């Protein structure tokens, strides 16, 4: 029972770490590159405008899609690794 408990706690901790990492990328792509850091990226030109504009209208959406699939793949592996899958 104690083993089950520490196993479950370790699984949850790994999950929280993964969520935190993913949310940092999520925030960096949208609030960071697309809005707040846009002036810093103004020097990088892309198709008649700057990288920040690309992040705002395309890049962030692509990052979001990548993040969800990455998280799903990682979590399904964690489920198996800790024996907590369905």
């Amino acid at each position, binding site marked *: 029972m104690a083993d089950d408990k520490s196993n*479950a706690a370790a*699984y*949850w901790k790994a*999950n929280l770490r993964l*969520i935190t990492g*993913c*949310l940092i990328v*999520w925030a960096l792509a*949208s*609030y960071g590159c*697309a*809005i*707040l850091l*846009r*002036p810093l990226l103004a020097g990088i030109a*892309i*198709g*008649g*405008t*700057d990288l*920040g*504009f*690309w992040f*705002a*209208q*395309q890049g*962030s*959406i*692509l990052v*979001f*899609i990548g*993040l*969800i*699939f990455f*998280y*799903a793949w990682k*979590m*399904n592996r964690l*489920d198996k690794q800790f*024996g*907590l*899958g*369905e």
Partner: protein
Amino acid sequence: MSQFAINVLFVGGSFAIYIGIAIWAKAGSTKDFYVAGGGVHPITNGMAIGADWMSAASFISMAGIIASAGYGASTFLMGWTGGYVLLALLLAPYLRKFGKFTVPEFIGDRFYSRSARMVAVICLIVASLTYVIGQMAGAGVAFSRFLEVDATTGLIIAAIVVFFYSVLGGMKGITYTQVAQYVVLIIAYTIPAIFISLELTDNPIPPLGLFSDHSASGEPLLAKLNEVVAALGFNEYTAMVDNKLNMVLFTLSLMIGTAGLPHVIMRFFTVPKVADARWSAGWALVFIGLLYLTAPAVASMARLNLVTTIYPDMAAQVENYEDATANPIAYADRPEWIRTWEETGLITFTDRNNDGNIQLYNDAADFADRGWQGNELEVSNDILVLANPEIANLPGWVVGLIAAGGLAAALSTAAGLLLAISSAISHDLIKGAINPRITEKGELRAARISMSVAIVVATYLGVNPPGFAAQVVALAFGIAAASLFPALMMGIFSKRINNKGAIAGMLSGLIFTLVYIFVYKGWFFIPGTNNLEDVEANWVLGISPLSIGAVGAILNFAVAYLVSNATEKPPQHIQDLVESVRYPKGAGVAIDH
């Protein structure tokens, strides 16, 4: 064949498909009705979520808003997609593991409180009902423009179709019609975009065309667009916004609101496993992304097309923009699509300087030296997508497709919202509070009756839209962001939040957000009752009422945390419940309780 006959054929054909699916997917149990039997494949579910999510606002209005606001409107692109990351990481898998039918049910069980459940029911009904009005109104516009019937008749036809497949099939019927509706709407949206992208940039993929060179001038499309709009006194299309704090908070409100909207969350209850809930969020965003990556391309190209239609000299490479703008087209020579849309009142022309030509420019800029006495052409944002095929001279069947697509977007979202409302009434209100001993058959009948009533109310409100129809987005997202999302998230990620904390948090987030919106938009949206004019100078710290949901959410978190820590811990069986929600093991059993 006349355009009218083609439109009737496309719309009628798509409706026949939806009804056929409804007959095939009739719901036999409450489990069928609420969660489609719990056996929907993640890719199918992703497509259904896409149609559920992409409403008349996404399909009809969003590209038009981006076209007029440029970079500033990226908020909608990021906000309405970024919420899915929050859903996939923070809510969907756990709520699926919990394995019940509705969002208020989770809140009621987790916070062991019928009051919490009722607060959630009220939030859900207000958010969903206001949202559904917009869908019905959007369907009305599409009907009146393409089928030459008046909006009321159109709405009643739409209501009968929705009634048929949602009352009969519940979630099961809705899921499979939504898949068909997704296919119709995405084809309708992308085909005109591909043609326009080819015409303007020689690139058949619109999102790539957006960052390619404009064929007529040889300059990058966005650089060309910047020059053209600047020459007419508008802000550059890609210009940075001044109020960054507001843009961040508005985006955050839309993201949190998206993740907290019950009709979207409900769709994750329909998949067989926790892992499937994670995958279906990803697939949903892929299917949504197809439209959301196309929209900004449609927006910039439509804006450029509009300007070069009025000022043909601006299309090629231009040395002196003053010369290019000197020769707008004469009103008498306006293209056919302007004529047809003038009939709907969505394009209006006023010849202020009586020269017979159309001057289109930013009214705030001063062009009196050119003999211009004010902007003469008003174009509603809502027509850009619907008029796209006509602007690009595409064949009649593409116009018919757009009509069917716009209706698919409006009706699929309406059905999802109506299901959320009816399940909150029959499952949370009737079974959860009024008559817990109701039989399954009785509950199914109650669900169907409440669905029917919700359709009648929504249709009535669609025909007689209250004055606040345009403001409902702020309201629905504000409520979902400030009340539902934080409660759900804390219910999963904290064992310490108790019933008192959750209720205090939800109410303070909700009341704070509503008061802030009402102060600027009028109390209960009654015109003239606002305390302050809704302009940036009056906003606290420059935060607009549209962006306040994010602040309400933060307040909700803070209040819930403080109140919970000042009061007793939740009982042991609730802590065990939180524990069990966190681990996927055993999810298969949970649904069959």
